[in-house]
């Protein structure tokens, strides 16, 4: 058998798709080819399950070791790794949990995986300085409506239907603890990093909509209109300003830009 066919047969053997490779490999004077090839096959599955557990500790604590192992093997069978770094092996897991039976029936799983993934992303995403309130103070009043933001490259924001952000610290402390999975909530989470510390915060649907809009290029004027459609129009500018102030205080904004910057230059 040539090299190409040997490697494909070997990989098929690891994936459990064929045993043809056993005709081409040898064990030793003590163990059969099947036993020795099994060292590779067992290591393949064990290594990926372990890596997923390391990268998604909240999900593992939520599911328990046995259920997590079963789920992880099913996931790896469906989505074998294609990335040189094993830390990306779980990149399809949220989608898998949200769409595959029986996991799709338990929204906690996909939510927790999404939360774990956001924290892992923030951990080693690109460095960048964060803007602060001082960047807002210098904006002339006539240009407030034109304010646009770029956000910190570590920022991730997403909706959840379960309180996984509150449950995760408890689960990591006591992995065996039973959570009340009937608890549901409609909210969003944002996760980001300041210096080397990963942060997260629950935000309400209005603020999440505002964040999505401004990440998409909306101006502060657009934000005020968006907020005005959700709250008392008279208090909308104040609410919008509070949202903006919070983002700057938390360090999720990278730059503050407005039309006055071009004219000043």
């Amino acid at each position, binding site marked *: 058998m040539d090299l190409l066919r040997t490697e494909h047969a070997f*990989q098929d053997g690891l994936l459990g798709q064929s045993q043809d490779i056993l005709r081409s490999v*040898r064990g030793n004077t003590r163990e059969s080819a099947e036993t020795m090839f099994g060292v590779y096959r067992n290591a393949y599955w064990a*290594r990926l399950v372990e890596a997923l557990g390391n990268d998604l500790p909240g999900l593992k604590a939520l599911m328990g070791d046995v259920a997590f192992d079963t789920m992880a093997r099913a996931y790896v069978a469906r989505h074998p790794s294609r990335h040189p770094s094993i830390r990306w092996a779980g990149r399809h897991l949220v989608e898998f949990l949200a769409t595959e039976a029986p996991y799709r029936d338990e929204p906690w799983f996909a939510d927790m995986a999404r939360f774990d993934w956001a924290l892992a992303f923030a951990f080693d995403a690109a460095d960048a300085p964060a803007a602060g309130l001082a960047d807002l103070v210098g904006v002339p009043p006539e240009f407030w409506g034109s304010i646009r933001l770029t956000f910190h490259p570590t920022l991730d924001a997403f909706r959840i239907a379960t309180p996984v952000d509150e449950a995760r610290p408890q689960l990591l402390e006591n992995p065996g603890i039973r959570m009340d999975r009937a608890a549901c909530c409609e909210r969003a989470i944002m996760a980001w990093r300041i210096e080397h510390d990963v942060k997260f915060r629950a935000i309400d649907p209005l603020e999440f909509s505002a964040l999505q809009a401004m990440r998409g290029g909306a101006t502060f004027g657009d934000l005020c209109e968006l907020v005005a459609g959700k709250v008392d129009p008279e208090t909308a500018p104040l609410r919008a300003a509070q949202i903006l102030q919070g983002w700057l205080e938390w360090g999720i904004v990278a730059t503050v830009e407005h039309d006055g910057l071009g004219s000043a230059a």
Partner: protein
Amino acid sequence: MTEHTVRSLGFGLGLRPQHYPAILDGAPEIDWFEILSENYMVEGGRPLAKLMAIRARYPMVMHGVSLSIGSTDPLDMDYLARLKALAARVEPTIISDHLCWTGVAGLNMHDLLPLPLTEEALSHVCARVDQVQSFLGREIALENASTYVTFANDAIPEWEFLAEIARRTGCRLLLDVNNVYVSAFNHDFRATDYIDAIPRDAVAYIHLAGHEHNKTYIIDTHDHPVVDGVWQLYGHAIRRFGAVATMIERDDKIPPLEELTAELARARKVAAAALKQPAQVA
């Protein structure tokens, strides 16, 4: 940096995140560190910050697991570009990976899979080493991986296979003495025969590690202290190769740094004692 400089690095450790504080807060007796390249192919954050803080104090070697030099898939040029970018940042003494393949059909098994030791595989690997060295603009080192099976069509002993790669491509060898020990047991050959067949000037540096002995075969777990048999083989290697840079590689069950520096101190003693003994003739 020249081969001489690589070989003269001294005694090092694999850099692991658990040891960042002990390394940065103290001044451990470690001459250099080897980093796992893939762990630092990230955009930013703590890993890169700690890496560069430690790099400012210690020489470094980059060691990868995903080059997949033996795969029949095309070389992953995106991976190589990121490897090159990391090397530009770290300025490692040398870049190493393994004589293995990690997947085909675009998949990555995240394991160091064995190659059939045939003339076809040898030519294939040599052509790819040439390609990689040309792209990186520097020589690389290839490590002997522990193996658990051999192939029915094997035609070349692994030690000759490795030596021939070094001869044809000019690449260096990273000799993992534990892996020689493991494969020798698993495939019923004499570990000293392997060592004695490796050209003296081809070895850039040496790995030492532990393993798990299952009576009928050994698994290269890299999660235990180095065993006596590997220390003896290391002494044999030093008698043959001379004072070659050496490191302890612990990949799992990472102990406190002091435990590894103590193991490194033993490596220094074994090497010093070996260098006083007559060189092997082979």
